[in-house]
């Protein structure tokens, strides 16, 4: 990138919010995704939405890319810098602007940490359910961009179910407002559902309006072990079929359980083949009734050991342990590559089998865990990025898993996003026409492909520069400004 461009960028955000030392570039070259990295040209912390607009105007004019970033815990490469890019970090935008207890909404800045927001609303008896594994670190902005899920997705849904609206800067620099506090709102296109999960390719959020619900006052947390992994899958299918919706139904295989136990030392059964962590919650007698039914289903499916958490602290310990699963698997090998193939819930037992099959066909070590209750599994390869031959087999194993998931009516990613990591499989999941439609949307909104380019989609490189009509648009935006 030219020095003059970097100077202009520095001028926009101010000297003290601009960083381009080798150390800063290196430390923003990665996110939570294994094996992907790229140096940005600079890192900036914008102070207000006008500065973000100006950065985007400049990017369109000077043809560089902008990569938005929250805490950088993403798992599909969504916030990894692209070539000739600057990283726009939003972590300092971390205010809760309003909690509206009359309308049950929260207006927040995108850099607020999910777990902190949850604690704050819970003080008022309210609940923001989406709880990705990294919830104590990740930001709401990142959650909305990735449409993050979590353990409670089964009953409470995912991030998109709680987004009421947002304010954001478009790739061409204008600030727009989407949605609002209305429960019903059909004015024009339902834009928020395109923007949620757009992985930072359609805009940079500056404010986000979230829906809150009453906090479930009662809950019961059950852990159960199985000698045979298939019985765990069958239990999940049976519980769903019994028309019970636990708030959580998490699955851990033996490898995962052992790694989690190495880290937490909370006394998980190291010898059983699988374990489920189930939580039922609510506000009335249904909690007890549902857990009774669940217990009888578990017994029928040869559960070897059933435990009920005695205290909320103990329940929290179990859930925290489950949330550490992905990182805990890294105890075994230097590199852990996790995927989130997802299938309709009734197919979970089949999918568990297929993942085992992939491990044996391609001779790779796979730890499996995930949100069994919503069909979202996280087969994780334990490997070493320095061993290219093995990495090759890992990729083949994942290809096999993705294909099997799609055959079962599933999808390539449930909650981590497409980003760079799963872009190659997108067409197999949504079809050629589906990909084309997405490209059209992206190009209509971001004609110069400056905002997080190359994520989700590959737009053909344009040798001749931007098309005239679009260039007109850009100059118009400038005069506008």
């Amino acid at each position, binding site marked *: 990138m030219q020095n003059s461009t970097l100077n202009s960028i520095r001028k926009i955000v101010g000297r003290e919010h601009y960083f381009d030392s080798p150390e800063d570039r290196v430390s923003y070259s990665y996110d*939570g995704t294994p094996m992907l990295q790229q140096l940005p040209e600079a890192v900036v912390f914008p102070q207000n939405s006008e500065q973000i607009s100006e950065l985007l105007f400049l990017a369109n004019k000077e043809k560089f890319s902008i990569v938005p970033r929250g805490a950088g815990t993403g798992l599909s490469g969504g916030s990894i810098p692209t070539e000739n890019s600057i990283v726009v970090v939003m972590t300092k935008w971390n205010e809760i602007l309003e909690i509206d207890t009359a309308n049950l909404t929260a207006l927040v800045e995108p850099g607020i940490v999910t777990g902190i927001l949850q604690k704050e609303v819970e003080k008022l008896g309210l609940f923001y359910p989406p709880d990705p594994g990294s919830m104590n670190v990740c930001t709401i902005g990142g959650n909305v961009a990735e449409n993050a899920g979590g353990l409670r997705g089964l009953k409470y849904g995912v991030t998109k179910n709680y987004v009421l609206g947002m304010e954001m800067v478009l790739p061409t620099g204008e600030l727009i407002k989407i949605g609002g506090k209305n429960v019903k709102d059909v004015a024009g296109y339902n834009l928020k559902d395109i923007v949620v999960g757009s992985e930072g390719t359609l805009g940079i959020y500056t404010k986000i309006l979230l829906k809150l619900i009453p906090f479930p006052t009662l809950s019961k947390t059950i852990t159960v072990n199985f000698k045979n992994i298939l019985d765990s899958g069958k239990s999940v299918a049976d519980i769903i079929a019994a028309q019970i919706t636990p708030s959580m139904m998490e699955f851990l295989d033996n490898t995962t359980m052992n790694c989690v136990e190495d880290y937490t030392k909370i006394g998980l059964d190291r010898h059983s083949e699988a374990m489920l962590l189930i939580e039922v919650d609510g506000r009335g007698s249904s909690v007890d009734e549902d857990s009774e039914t669940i217990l009888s289903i578990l017994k029928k499916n040869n559960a070897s050991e059933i435990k009920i958490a005695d205290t909320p602290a103990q329940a929290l310990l179990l859930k925290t342990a489950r949330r550490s699963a992905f990182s805990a698997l890294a*105890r075994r090998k230097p590199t852990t590559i996790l995927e989130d193939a997802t299938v309709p819930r009734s197919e979970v037992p089949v999918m568990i089998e297929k993942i085992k099959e992939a491990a044996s066909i391609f001779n790779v070590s796979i730890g499996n865990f995930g949100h069994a209750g919503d069909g979202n599994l996280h087969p994780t390869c334990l490997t070493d990025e*320095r061993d290219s031959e093995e990495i090759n087999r890992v990729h083949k194993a994942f290809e096999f898993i993705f294909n099997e998931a799609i055959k079962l009516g599933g999808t390539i990613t449930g909650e981590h996003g497409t980003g760079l990591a799963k872009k190659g499989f997108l067409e197999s999941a949504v079809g050629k026409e589906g990909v084309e439609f997405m490209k059209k949307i992206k190009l209509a909104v971001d004609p110069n492909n400056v905002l997080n380019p190359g994520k989700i989609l590959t737009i053909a490189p344009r040798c001749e520069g931007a098309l005239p009509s679009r260039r007109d648009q850009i100059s118009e935006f400038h005069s506008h400004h």
Partner: protein
Amino acid sequence: MISTKDKALLKKYLPNDDVLTQCMHCGMCLATCPTYEMTKMERSSPRGRIKLIKSVAEGKLDLSNLFAEEMNFCLDCQACETACPAGVQYGKMVESARVVIEHSKVGASKINKLIKKFMLNSVVAKHYRLKLLARVLYFYQNTPLRKWIVNGLAFFPATQKYVEIESLTPTISKHFSSKIIAEKEYPEKPAKYKIAFSTGCIMDVAFADINVDTIEVLKKNECEIITPKDQVCCGSLHAHNGQIDKAKKLAKKNLDVFSKHEYDFLISNSAGCGAFMKEYVHLFKDDPKYAEKAKLFSNRVKDISEFLANIEPSTPMFALKEKVTYHDACHLCHSQKITEEPRKLLRQIPGLEIVNLEESQWCCGSAGIYNVTQHEDAEKILDRKIKNLKETGADIVVTGNPGCIGQLKYGIKKYGLSMEVMHTVTLIKKSLNLKN
């Protein structure tokens, strides 16, 4: 470009690629890191620093002043190690990076490095000189001299910050504990346990009472105690500040000293010292002469709270009508994973009202000599601790490390709180001695 000399340094001191690759940069450490919380910059986070160290080790990044600054900005509180599900040994990496920095041209000016080296190697490591310095300090603190100097410093804007640093110097005890405690101490009843006691350097000169309390409590719990007069500094301050060779030299001396005695457990009441003495086994794992000795030694090191919580309290305790809260010293909770034991001991004392301290495992900013070397950053971290302490409304804050005790006392005074700071063992002693 990295010079050949630097390359040799990196190869000699930095951990190998297997250790560096263990970090998967998932970011679970970010929320627990006091310096990342302060700056929100990746390079001030554990995974950011690991990435920097890895890049330096791979020759992709030069050793620079900014690199040195980040490594020294780290408190080495190791909260990230507690948070890391993958078991990444972050402390080791940062400490080794500091060794490289100490030997290289980057980082603090040569004169500052020399002063630090002199203080650590020629004062702390030579206990008689530390005692001498402490004597001078005691004199200074107990004559009008102190007032004159402080007033002088406060007068000039340029020297005002030294007033704060000055007030951080621990109040020196009138008698050092090594003078009061006999080399061998015996309980009234026949001894159940044979204990070796590590006095610690700072505890000995600044918190002599705590050492005396420790001996008293041990004696009431049927321990006979040997306190070797020729023991030396454990070396932890040196290891945390890039002087690993000196740390090893001190460690060897202690291994030689303590191996001459027979004992069941070696008790420390300084979390930092205990943590490092438990590390000796790893420090010498490839040393043919000391490996076995170090293993035998480290396996028997116990923090005082760890030891007391695991034996039957043999003396009846009397009620203390106090409201107390507990601050986890980093080197107890993160390095030694001791969190439950001191709380169990508090619960054994009748009458105590124990209140929870928010973020009790968050560093207080003391961090060895960090509150002196990185004074301004330490002040910000202290602010947060004081705010949480204030909310407890406790009469006493209990903790298990001299560094924390000094820092908390300083903070409480600075903010005008009325709260006592006490070592766990002192509170236990109070309960043992009181009559209803």
